């Protein structure tokens, strides 16, 4: 596996709870992204038999073309991961993981003669148990039995991948995706005993946005995830001080005015006197504990629950500041200042537009908000950076890792690093 070969055929695969981001090194700096889900079409009807549509499982951009009745979705549309974890014996979920892996590899299969398979770096949640590593390697082996698409494979944790992408070896990574958030201290390797997982991510911000839209009279649209996501991105604001920002917006709603039109439609969303609700979206992501949210919970907004997966407790309502402190305080005292001094924010849940200058002192950025949450708890000497295009930083780290790790570095189950060769 020469450097020339790796320069052409390194492949990154980031298995997020909601999205699978993948692509070869030749992708440039942005991977291809599909939903991490698979649809099992019913193959017992006339259309399937008459037109020869005999796919057992559909993944990627084709999924919407195969969807059948709504009632059918819960049974046949499978999201394999819950909080980054696939249940060990859930064979349908693993079939989806295999199908998306194959989909990604085939999409980038090169036509060159010298192609002997990709060097694939898979990235899993920092709390993924060992059986997930074993299963991923098993899947790659099965893919290769049909067609040689993989030359060597390795698996790294998502926070480590973020740290690699930003060349930081001692830091705290907060990787907040659509489904959940992981706070992971890193000192050359992820400190597994100190990881604090949170059962809250971009999907929860979508939920509160949907409630706000319902209150504004957009009930039908609030059921469409793509619309809600766009509304969240366009309308959401992170408050400096939640109560003060909301009070100000209630008093001067015009100052916070923002309307947006959905491209290609006639739909224009305007908040008018309810512009204060823009702050609900931002606050909910970082700290959902304010009493204002209680009325939403009472009206049906699903409250992020504490859930136990294996021996790990995913807290639902933990604010991000508290979560960082909890994670860092599980590490040696000498290391703690270094972990606070380098906090990296990564993941799509941190993709927020910079507030306008007009809102200075009322709305802020994600890193400033975390800084404020930590300051409230007495932690001051912190340095927080937002990764460049945070939704892609895990994938970028996999590409750099795949390129930089020497080919003779064999996989070690003790260290969970190195290459497994498929030659």
């Amino acid at each position, binding site marked *: 596996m020469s*450097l*020339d070969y790796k*320069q*052409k055929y390194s492949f990154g695969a980031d298995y997020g709870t909601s999205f699978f981001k993948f*692509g070869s*090194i*030749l*992708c*440039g*700096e*942005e991977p*291809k992204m599909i939903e991490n889900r698979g649809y099992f079409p019913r193959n017992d009807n006339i259309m399937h038999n008459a037109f020869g549509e005999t796919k057992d499982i559909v993944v990627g951009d084709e999924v919407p073309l195969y969807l059948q009745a709504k009632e059918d979705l819960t049974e046949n549309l499978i999201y394999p991961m819950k909080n980054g974890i696939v249940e060990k014996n859930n064979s349908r979920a693993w079939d989806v993981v295999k199908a998306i892996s194959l989909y990604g590899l*085939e*999409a*980038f*299969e*090169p*036509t*060159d*003669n010298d192609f002997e398979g990709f060097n694939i770096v898979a990235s899993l949640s920092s709390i993924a148990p060992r059986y997930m590593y074993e299963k991923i390697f098993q899947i790659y082996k099965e893919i290769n039995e049909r067609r040689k698409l993989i030359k060597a494979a390795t698996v790294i944790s998502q926070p480590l991948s973020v740290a690699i*992408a*930003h*060349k*930081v070896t001692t830091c705290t990574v907060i990787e907040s995706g659509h489904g959940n958030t992981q706070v992971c201290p890193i000192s050359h390797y992820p400190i597994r005993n100190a990881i604090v997982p949170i059962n809250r991510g971009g999907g929860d911000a979508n939920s509160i946005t949907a409630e706000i839209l319902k209150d504004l009279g957009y009930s039908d649209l609030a059921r469409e995830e793509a619309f809600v996501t766009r509304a969240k991105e366009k309308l959401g604001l992170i408050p400096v001080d939640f109560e003060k920002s909301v009070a100000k917006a209630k008093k001067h709603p015009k100052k916070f005015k923002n309307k947006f039109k959905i491209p290609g439609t006639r739909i224009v969303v305007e908040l008018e006197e309810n512009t204060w609700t823009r702050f609900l979206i931002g606050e909910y992501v970082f700290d959902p504990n304010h009493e204002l949210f209680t009325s939403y919970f009472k009206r049906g907004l699903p409250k992020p629950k504490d859930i136990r997966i294996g021996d790990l407790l995913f807290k639902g309502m933990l604010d991000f500041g508290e979560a960082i402190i909890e994670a860092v305080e599980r590490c040696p005292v000498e290391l703690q200042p270094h972990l606070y001094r380098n906090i*990296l924010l990564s993941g799509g849940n941190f993709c927020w537009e910079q507030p306008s200058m007009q809102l200075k002192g009322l709305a802020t950025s994600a890193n400033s908000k975390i800084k404020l949450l930590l300051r409230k708890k007495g932690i001051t000497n912190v340095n927080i*950076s*937002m*990764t*460049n295009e945070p939704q892609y930083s895990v994938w*970028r780290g996999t590409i*750099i890792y795949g*390129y*930089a790790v*020497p080919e*003779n570095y064999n996989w070690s189950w003790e260290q969970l690093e190195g290459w497994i060769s498929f030659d």
Partner: protein
Amino acid sequence: MNQSKKIKPIISGQVIFNIITKESKLIQFENILEIFKQNLKFLRRKTGAYIFSGGIISNLDLIKNNNGSLTASIRFNKAKPFFLDNLTSTTLSNFNKNSLSCSMKGNFDFDRIKNYLKDSSDWFEESKKNFCAKKRYDKKKVQVTAYPSMAILNLMCEFNGKEDTLDPNSPGRIIKNLSRIGGGTT
């Protein structure tokens, strides 16, 4: 006449070069960065990325080879053709040889690109509609790989010595040419 909107592709990729001087052990990440800062207009740093006029260096790695030499890998993003020309000429002036892999992401007219490349050497096409060819630009052979379903066009080529980047072989020129054929602008 209706004029369709031009595609503006996102250009990103990687330049690699070997450092085989006796002093290679002394060469650090900062030294290489300094060379770039002298030759490209540096604007600012942003969380591990270095923002220059016309492009971003998102990552710079030094990889130790088995024989003790070093390979430098520079990943760039959101590049303009002139940035790529400057980047390659800077590495060639200092390290004499480099290999460039560059991707353009955009909804090109891949059929037109296919027609343009079809008569080139080493033409391959496979069932997923990806295709690949080696196209000659004057003395330079450039490997072009297209992934139509992913809207990606990739170029790979090697440059030897400073004279290699002179027109019409400069990477910026080649990129502009291919982009134009696919209905894009740069």
